[in-house]
């Protein structure tokens, strides 16, 4: 209780800083837009953001109301063009400073969160004064109400969440595209230097055989044997390349058996536990397989491990893979490219990698791939927006009234010729209107039931999300 009062006191004391801030903000705003002193706007926005962030943090810590920051992601730094200039809209600059400043200015200006923050700061003194009685009498409740108000003004919106998702997706897409391109280059090199060169050699040998076969059959025979040997080697080479692209066991048996086959071929003693309901999608399988393969070979090569354990399990629609080895530990993603390569591969599926490798071992790597299993819909369930939810609830709450008492029951009473009018609306009307109104009531009731079922059934979360997309999340040129 005493702590609550302390917290209330801090909130009220903050007013001492907030009120001068508002007093300063208004002329600054006026100056930056009315008089064209636009350089005043960013410091103003940062100041408002500082107060908003402080309030979010305090509310999170004191009341547990999780207020997410709603800001759009910061614009990326300007990209240097081939001619060494930096572009901002239709102007070229020599240094990146001006375009960067422009981008940040636009970012602050177009982010709705900036203006919501400003609104909050402007209203905050009033709200705090209105809540003053609650703060003094029931400080716990008062703080909670204040936190809910803060969340409402300062919390994340569908638009800001989407914008965050968009920038995350853009980053992971770039990573995935990069790693795929690198894979393609590696395969091209392997085929070019290996199989292709060997086939050229075989072709040349066969040409020589053709020339020799009449005059020197013995030499021709020897060359043919050589060509056959070379074709065997080419096949071995191709098998190696294919294993690097997509291992045949993986295609034939799926992740579980492919990892078992990997474990058998490993120099370590590897035990494998698999609990999978069925086959995963091919790209997920491949990413998971190569991750395990890389981890096992790391453990054997760098960690000097003798035994390892692989555990593949599912949780609802998430895939979790744990690889443990008894090596000497001390693995560091910053040192080798192996672990960061795995992270890149997994990030295409929103997967994350957690590494626990104290010096001296053991090393445990846990990889989580969310929502990759087919069929489970736990995460994809449509979530109705609040407005629609209210409509559906109101429909269910009232639809019985026209259908039964005002419709069917009134009709039965009228058909049986009962005298009692009770609260059957239709029976108070002139005789001609009674039946039409009764049927109208039944029709209305059925329609309301129908709509109450139809709205959630046809609600398409994706379409709704598209509708909620902000106009300009942040445009990359």
């Amino acid at each position, binding site marked *: 209780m005493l702590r609550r009062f302390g917290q209330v006191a801090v909130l009220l004391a903050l007013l001492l800083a907030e009120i001068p801030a508002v007093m300063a903000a208004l002329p600054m705003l006026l100056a930056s837009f009315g008089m064209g002193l636009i350089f005043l706007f960013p410091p103003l926005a940062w100041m408002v953001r500082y107060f908003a962030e402080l309030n979010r943090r305090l509310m999170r810590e004191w009341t547990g109301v999780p207020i997410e920051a709603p800001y759009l992601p910061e614009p990326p730094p300007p990209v240097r063009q081939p001619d060494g200039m930096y572009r901002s809209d239709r102007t070229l600059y020599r240094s990146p400073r001006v375009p960067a400043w422009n981008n940040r200015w636009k970012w602050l200006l177009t982010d709705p969160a900036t203006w919501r923050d400003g609104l909050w700061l402007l209203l905050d003194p009033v709200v705090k004064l209105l809540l003053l009685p609650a703060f003094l009498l029931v400080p716990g409740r008062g703080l909670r109400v204040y936190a809910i108000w803060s969340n409402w003004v300062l919390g994340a919106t569908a638009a800001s969440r989407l914008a965050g998702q968009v920038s995350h997706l853009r980053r992971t897409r770039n990573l995935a595209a990069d790693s795929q391109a690198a894979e393609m280059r590696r395969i091209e090199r392997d085929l070019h230097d290996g199989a292709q060169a060997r086939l050229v050699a075989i072709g040349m040998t066969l040409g020589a055989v053709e020339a020799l076969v009449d005059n020197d059959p013995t030499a021709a025979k020897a060359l043919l044997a050589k060509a056959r040997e070379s*074709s065997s080697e080419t096949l071995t080479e191709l098998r190696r390349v294919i294993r690097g692209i997509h291992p*045949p*066991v993986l295609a034939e048996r799926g992740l579980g058996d492919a990892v*078992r086959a990997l474990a*058998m071929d490993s120099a370590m*003693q590897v035990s494998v536990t698999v609990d999978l309901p069925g086959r995963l999608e091919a790209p997920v399988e491949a990413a998971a397989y190569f991750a395990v393969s890389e981890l096992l070979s790391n453990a054997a090569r760098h960690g000097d491990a003798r035994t390892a354990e692989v555990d593949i399990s599912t949780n609802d629609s998430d895939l979790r893979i744990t690889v443990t080895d008894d090596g000497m530990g001390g693995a560091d993603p910053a040192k080798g490219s192996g672990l960061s390569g795995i992270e890149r591969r997994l990030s295409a599926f929103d997967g994350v990698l957690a590494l626990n490798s104290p010096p001296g071992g053991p090393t445990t790597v846990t990889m989580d791939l969310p929502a990759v299993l087919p069929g489970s819909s736990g995460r994809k369930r449509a979530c109705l927006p609040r407005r629609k939810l209210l409509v559906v609830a109101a429909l269910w709450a009232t639809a019985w009234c026209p259908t039964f008492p005002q419709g069917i029951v009134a009709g039965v009473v009228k058909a049986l010729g009962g005298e009692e009018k009770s609260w059957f609306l239709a029976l108070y009307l002139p005789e001609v209107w009674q039946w039409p109104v009764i049927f109208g009531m039944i029709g209305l009731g059925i329609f309301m039931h129908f709509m109450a079922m139809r709205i959630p059934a046809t609600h398409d979360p994706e379409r709704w999300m598209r509708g909620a997309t902000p106009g300009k999340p942040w445009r990359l040129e």
Partner: protein
Amino acid sequence: MSRVLIAEDLYLLRDGLVHLLQAHGFTVVAAVESGPELLKGLLELRPDVSIVDVRLPPTFTDEGLQAALAARAKVPGLPILVLSQHVEQLYARELLADGSGAIGYLLKDRVFNATQFVDAVRRVAEGGTAMDPEVIAKLLASNARNEPLAALTPREREVLEAMAEGRSNAGISQRLYLSESAVAKHTASIFAKLGLAPSDDDNRRVLAVLAYLNSR
């Protein structure tokens, strides 16, 4: 004259196998190209030996291998030689698991050497085994830390490899340029070191070695 069934989805290879085996005195009773046809053929025709590709239509996964395992579960010891573009310890262990012999598992490249390939087919038809050297190498590699195996001399190891591929004493002596009596001496020593019961029957001897390698 042995009756052979061939299951292979690539026309050229299927045709080549048919010609090769006919030229060596086999009778090809059926040449099929899909998993369900194969299983039906195996169970109805009961061929003396079947040559089966691992990957077959309709699913192009391990259809052929599954059909072979299913047929051998119903008819124990039905002789089947499995061909594949790649060899896996996992598949080899599954094929060897029933321990009844008359099984082969070779890379498709081995067809290049017609005499050796036909030799392998005959061996499987007679109830022996024909394991690809690559499979044996992998099995031995995964047993590398096994104490008794590490105690073998290099020569004994070579004999063990040849034996695990399914060769008889005569075959081993030919391949390693040893006298048959020397091979017999080496095998006796290997069996003593691995703690296996000696046996004069070639096939049973091979199965014992494979079961030993398989037991890890």
